[in-house]
């Protein structure tokens, strides 16, 4: 029931077409087979279509089509389990750089848009997403700055050309642009359950130039808030695609699988659960669209809607994938079926940028309880 502009409809159609043909779940399985968790080969195509610069303004080498359009791409990426640095580099780093402006943005945003560089955001320091808890620190006098700390679950951190690292400088938040090949940086690659690239990164007395600091203090707070809001809405859109894929496979199964001499879709117990899932997917689609529109309009509701979208999608994504496996029965547990792959990606996207509990807590606080 979504009303899209002509541009947005074109994006949605071309994303669906491009990803279905050659970048679908079969392609994901092939990457998994050879242990490629970054799929760097797709980057040139994504850049060519303008996707890597989708939220980067034209002045910085992007196409500036906005977050709603980006969400349509993310949904198709999710539906096809396409591995790419879209969320990390195009959305998180793209938003951070575009919001910050300055020399670093002039230098790196165009490279993100052309696919010549991948930039990742290093913010989490513990198993649960708490971006406000930062022990990583920038210390020392100007001219002799050092970065020390450790980050975990840096999505696309294993293949990034630069990391945007959240750190404290005194009491201030500081966003530092760091070369992962610099002396003192150690990247530990990790094999993840959803076969997407992440790294744990350790920074030991890494030398930082003043020019490497993207923002500090109140400016950094604002940039990080906008970046996380954008990432959450886009991650939710990707998770929506994953959930819709699981649901559609399940509805198909209900229409074709026979037991007790009848199609199992004739059983009311299953019909009602399938219809409930359909309703939940319909309403969470609207919430995600509203969150993305809020980002495009820079409205006062950005924080509330992006967090609500992330929280709600975590619940609906779990429902879609769990119901999918259960309604498929034993076959749903096999690696040969795609449901398990969707369930794993859904699980990862729930943790990425904060789960339902984390964001619901924020909304309760905001309401004063």
């Amino acid at each position: 029931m979504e009303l899209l502009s002509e541009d947005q409809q074109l994006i949605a159609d071309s994303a669906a077409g491009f990803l279905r043909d050659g970048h679908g779940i079969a392609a994901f399985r092939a990457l998994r087979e050879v242990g490629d968790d970054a799929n760097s080969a797709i980057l040139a195509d994504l850049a060519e279509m303008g996707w890597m610069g989708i939220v980067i303004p034209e002045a910085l080498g992007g196409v500036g089509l906005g977050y709603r359009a980006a969400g349509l791409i993310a949904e198709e990426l999710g539906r096809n389990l396409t591995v790419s640095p879209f969320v990390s580099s195009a959305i998180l780093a793209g938003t951070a750089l575009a919001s910050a402006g300055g020399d670093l943005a002039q230098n790196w945003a165009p490279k993100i848009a052309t696919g010549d560089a991948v930039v990742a955001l290093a913010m989490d320091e513990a198993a649960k997403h708490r971006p406000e808890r930062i022990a990583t620190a920038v210390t020392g006098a100007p001219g002799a700055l050092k970065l020390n700390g450790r980050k975990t679950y840096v999505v696309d951190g294993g293949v990034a050309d630069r990391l945007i690292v959240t750190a404290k400088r005194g009491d201030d938040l500081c966003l530092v642009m760091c070369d992962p090949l610099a002396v003192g940086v150690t990247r530990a690659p990790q094999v993840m359950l959803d076969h997407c690239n992440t790294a744990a990164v350790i920074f030991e007395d890494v030398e930082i130039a003043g020019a490497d600091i993207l923002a500090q203090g109140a400016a950094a707070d604002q940039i990080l808030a906008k970046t996380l809001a954008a990432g959450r809405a886009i991650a939710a859109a990707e998770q929506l695609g994953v959930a819709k894929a699981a649901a559609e496979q399940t509805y198909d199964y209900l229409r074709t699988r026979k037991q007790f001499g009848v199609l199992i879709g004739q059983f009311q117990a299953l019909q009602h659960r399938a219809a409930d899932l359909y309703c939940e997917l319909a309403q969470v689609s609207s919430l995600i669209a509203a969150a993305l529109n809020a980002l495009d309009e820079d409205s006062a509701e950005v924080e509330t809607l992006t967090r609500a979208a992330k929280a709600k999608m975590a619940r609906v994504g779990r429902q879609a994938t769990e119901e999918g496996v259960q309604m498929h029965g034993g076959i749903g547990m096999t690696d040969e079926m795609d449901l398990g792959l969707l369930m794993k990606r859904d699980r990862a996207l729930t943790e990425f940028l904060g789960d339902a509990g984390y964001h619901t807590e924020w909304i309760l606080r905001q309401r004063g309880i």
Partner: protein
Amino acid sequence: MDIDTFRSETRAWLEVNCPAEMRTPMGEDDICWGGRKFVFRSPAQKQWLEAMAAKGWTVPAWPKSYGGGGLSGDEQKILAEEMQRINARPPLQSFGIWMLGPALLQFGSEEQKRHYLPLIARGEIRWCQGYSEPGAGSDLAGLQTKGVDRGDHFEVTGQKIWTSYADKADWIFCLVRTEPEEKKHTGISFLLFDMESAGVSTKPIKLISGASPFCETFFDGVKVPKDQIVGARGQGWTIAKYLLTHEREMIGAADSALFAKSDLAADALAAIGLDDTGRLDDPMLRAEMGQFLVDELCFDAHLDMTGAYMRAGHELGARSAELKYLGTELNKRRQSLRVAAGGSDDLVWEGAANDAGQAAKDWLRSKANTIEGGTSEVMLSILSKAVLKLPG
């Protein structure tokens, strides 16, 4: 007219024509239902209705020739926004606007549209809906009220139940079996008649909330002239289903007339207070409330998107079942959380202290939400077949 001009003119017109008393929060008793028996609560309420009806803005989307405003989708949105901006109350709410009107626009003859629609738009006739029967609830098409062909009229005999506000309504739109030889779904006709006709009687049903919004309605040989049939003989079920999609949209939209939206968080804070970490001093209720608040944001966004979709000229069709299911299940949770937060204060049934137990009465009333207009289970069955195309 360009859209900015429309907004500024609308704003100026509302400023002049909406009385100050019609810009304050309203309770259920403040709803203007219209009709022959309606007693206005204040001169301002009457003035507001008449001013809006003269513009056609009680039904802004309907064509002007039928008493509507003839507004485009964008203009409707602006009118709604400008009314919301000054907290203007809806000038008129009725089943005529929500349900019968859309059905007449779709299926009525030109003569019927010109006769009935302006009466609805001006709030002169209040309608009730004769659908459910004692033996035909969820299985609505099993209805047995019969209409016997007597040449120039049908003679209607039978019983309806759960007829909302039948005792206050002027006319009824009623499903009647006029073709007994036909199959279940093709033997029904859609008739309109005056509740003051000889042979009509009503009896209110007292509910668990103490209120009596529903009636039993009896027909004993009621004469209904044949020009008061909408559509063709035997086409009633098609019209009924179309009308039900509008009823479900209405019930699904939680901000409809039936419930005041309370501020749950503020109520809970006042009743329970905070613990020393600054959180509501009831962790389990708080967690449940958190999930509810997220779901409420979600449904509100869905209503917004759906509204825009419909203003762009799309019909919801079977997807009205989706709004009905989500909206009513959500409202039941809202009302349960409200009384849970209110604790024993909300057990008090009479007296001024807690508005005569309004929270508990709303909580009880809300239990009907997932039954009336088709149960949640009927909604899920409709969606599984009409939208998901699961086998029957």
